[in-house]
């Protein structure tokens, strides 16, 4: 090969590189065989406590859900996994039709007109939805409920530093009255504490003030709850991970973004549309690309290029396998278990369910203080439960002064896990009483 190029060494091709920087020593370890690397990664993995290794009640945007065996078998096929972005539709119909099916399934679940082919994940999808509202209203104020997941809110705050948007956070109950001069109202339903929210009233208030209504949602809840499209919502966003995608410690996930037809030209990201080929055969292509960075550069609706296509395909496979009844069953099981657990935990001394009003498949629990006069309670109890190998979320500093536990249930939550949680919190509550009595 060197001979064909007409050189004796590759270095002859590198004359443009400053000599003093050429071929540096990097200080990386030497390579490993496949056997060695497998063992090395297994050793690292052994230092983690996996979700299934004990009682587990973490959740929120990322949920431990049952993933049918066929999802990974299909989505990890090399023809999907190792394909490039489908810019050449003649040899990419597998990707394009799968994404078209994903868009269709998302629209059906959320009762929306249009869904894009994916955003990175939930939090950045919320931020991009806010940007859409800012562009379409010409206003720079974004009003967001403080019951939106705190990680999502923090992400929106970061993104807002780009175009210097004004972000206002108010409790959900005050959202409707904060709509004046706003580009959008952002509401989460079910909210971070599992609470059910009257979204229609918020959407109406937004529209009356010339603002858009953005709903943050979760896929499974929509199988049982009135969907955003029926509530007057303009843009829906959410974390799509529960749709058959592993939790995988933070990603890769699936940012869901869907909107009304009128907003489609403001939508970020790729979208697939139906067309036909030169012989009249049905086919699918990336379309409405004049919104995108590779065509419009600095005038694009977003800079997004690489997205989460394989996660969108996984979600389509998941929904197709589960069907409407399977999706409803998974959602219902979370609801039933959460309500059973809330009933038992709420009856313990010093414990109260603190989600306001009705809740879905998770709830907040106010717990007794571990040390009389000490700071907070939820975080301390969370740590005490961790010592018992039980994983539970605490609101800690992320939701104002609130210091409760948040307990998420799904179809994966077992009776044994629930019994273990109740017993552990009962024992903690009892020890607090003893401490107080002793004093």
């Amino acid at each position: 090969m060197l001979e064909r190029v007409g050189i004796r060494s590759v270095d002859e091709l590198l004359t443009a590189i400053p000599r003093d920087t050429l071929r540096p020593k990097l200080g990386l370890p030497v390579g490993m065989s496949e056997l060695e690397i497998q063992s090395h990664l297994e050793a690292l993995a052994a230092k983690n406590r996996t979700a299934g290794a004990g009682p587990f009640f973490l959740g929120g945007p990322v949920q431990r859900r049952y993933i049918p065996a066929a999802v990974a078998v299909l989505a990890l096929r090399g023809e999907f996994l190792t394909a490039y972005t489908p810019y050449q539709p003649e040899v990419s119909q597998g990707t394009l039709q799968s994404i078209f099916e994903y868009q269709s399934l998302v629209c059906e679940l959320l009762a929306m007109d249009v869904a894009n082919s994916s955003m990175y994940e939930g939090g950045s999808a919320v931020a991009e939805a806010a940007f859409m509202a800012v562009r379409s209203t010409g206003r720079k104020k974004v009003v967001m409920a403080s019951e939106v997941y705190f990680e999502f809110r923090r992400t929106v705050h970061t993104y807002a530093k780009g175009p210097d948007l004004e972000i206002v956070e108010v409790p959900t109950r005050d959202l409707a009255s904060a709509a004046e001069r706003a580009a959008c109202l952002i509401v989460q339903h079910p909210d971070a504490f599992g609470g059910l929210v009257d979204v229609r009233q918020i959407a109406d208030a937004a529209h009356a003030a010339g603002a858009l209504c953005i709903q943050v949602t979760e896929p499974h809840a929509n199988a049982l709850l009135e969907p955003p499209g029926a509530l007057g919502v303009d843009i829906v966003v959410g974390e799509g991970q529960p749709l058959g995608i592993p939790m995988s410690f933070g990603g890769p996930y699936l940012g869901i973004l869907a909107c009304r037809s009128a907003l489609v030209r403001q939508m970020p990201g790729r979208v697939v549309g139906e067309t036909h080929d030169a012989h009249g055969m049905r086919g699918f292509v990336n379309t409405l690309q004049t919104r995108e960075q590779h065509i419009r550069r600095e005038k694009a609706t977003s800079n997004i290029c690489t997205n989460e296509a394989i996660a969108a395909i996984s979600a389509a496979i998941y929904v197709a396998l589960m069907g409407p009844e399977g999706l409803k069953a998974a959602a219902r099981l979370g609801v039933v278990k959460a309500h059973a657990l809330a009933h038992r935990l709420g009856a313990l001394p010093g414990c109260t369910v603190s989600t306001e009003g009705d809740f879905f498949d998770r709830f907040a629990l106010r717990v007794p203080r571990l040390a009389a006069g000490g700071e907070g309670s939820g975080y301390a109890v969370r740590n005490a439960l961790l010592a018992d190998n039980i994983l539970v979320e605490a609101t800690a500093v992320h939701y104002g002064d609130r210091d409760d536990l948040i307990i998420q249930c799904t179809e994966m939550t077992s009776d044994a896990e629930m019994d273990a949680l109740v017993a552990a919190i009962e024992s903690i509550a009892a020890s607090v009483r003893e401490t107080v009595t002793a004093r």
Partner: protein
Amino acid sequence: MTIRTQVIPDSGVTTAMPALEPLLVEIHQGGRAGRHVRGGDEADAQIPAAFARKAPLGLPELTEPQVVRHFTHLAQLNYAVDTGMYPLGSCTMKYNPKINDRVAGLFGDLHPTQPESTVQGALALLAELESMLAKVTGMDAVTLQPAAGAHAEFTAILMFKAYHRKRGEGAKRHRVIVPDTAHGTNPASAAMCGFEVTTVKSDARGNIDLASLKTALGDDVVGLMLTNPNTLGLFEERLREVCDAVHDVGGLVYGDGANMNALLGIARPGDLGFDCIHINVHKTFSTPHGAGGPGAGPLCVKEPLRAFLPKPWIVHDEQGPYRYETKQADSIGRVRTFAGNFGVLVRAYTYMRTLGEEGLAEASNDAILAANYLLAQLRDSYDVAFDRPCMHEFVVSAARQKKLGVSALDVGKALIDEGFHPPTVYFPLVVPEALMIEPTETEPRETLDAFAAAMVRIAEKASTDPASVKAAPKNAPLARLDEVHAARNPKLKWQRPT
């Protein structure tokens, strides 16, 4: 690749238009609920009527074998790295080792908000990956949060904004400079940060034009976004002067690392004058492109930018456990919900540890040799845009063929009939009828020769039988698609059966 020519698989389904594969909604038959999860009927009584779904839920009902066959048929319509070579310039479609996928599965069952003490293995892996990336790029600190290259660009330009504000220069600096060869994401990222974009042209040797750059520079400049090697596959010949000129006016230099596959163990951006650089692990470090994503876009920065990195940071004291740190007052904050595309980062980590120091250098060396080897074989058949040694990719022009009525797009489509994926076409914008070719180091010499032979055959056909080139592809699942129809009559989801 698999070529399927039958109209409809043996499904008994009638579609509205002749189709390769029916839609899920067309296969749907009522009453075929899956049995993967069942139960929970009591829930309906626990959801207040005011909140319960009244809108129809018209999701398809299918058996598992129907779903498996459907998506298997669809998969077979795809071209992929596992089926053939992708000469896609700037995309680095190298082979994706299967061991990476398997070990990523070892970490699938970890929730991102698990307490630090329960995820020490995962945090150790991330910390070590940060350290390795810093060494490869010659930078001082790394964030693994960005989900993709464009996300890293946005992160970095936000950090530039914070950096200038901290120095009291935020108000006056409002312009970002990009060369005319830049990826579209560069100007789009700058615009998302509220900045104006100034485009600077290239010179006759394919470098950013230094005189034009100097004219464009001033104390209102935030920084320069530069890809090196650039999208012509050329190493910037006056890189030090370029970086110095930006620094002289107080600006910062952003490195778009899309072409990092040319530089592993060859040169470190941190030694060349860049203040930061992102890595597309789905290019350089062999993680699969996933039909469009996910990727991951770690951002590596020099010391002066460290304080502005997204948080939480992963830190640990000597011998101590790994933990998150969120106290950094100057941080721009988090750019996504959780720590990063972990499943992708595990694959990149595995690749780096497998190849090690010598293997990575060998990869870049071979990628550069493969590109020059192909260029040598194509230079008589196509016009070479800038005639000097290339790095890991190069750009030729189909301008000669265009005069015969055959465009770069036609050449690409004709490659499909030859069994190859088309190269990147019409980019960079500065080369008319551009064909941007990147073979990568993982194609054997026979494949490179076969690709070159196909390109030469197409060039010959362009002069002897241009109509046949324009009619390509003939052997793909579909002929050329009507993209104008799709854009004018947007049909973005299926029609629910009534």
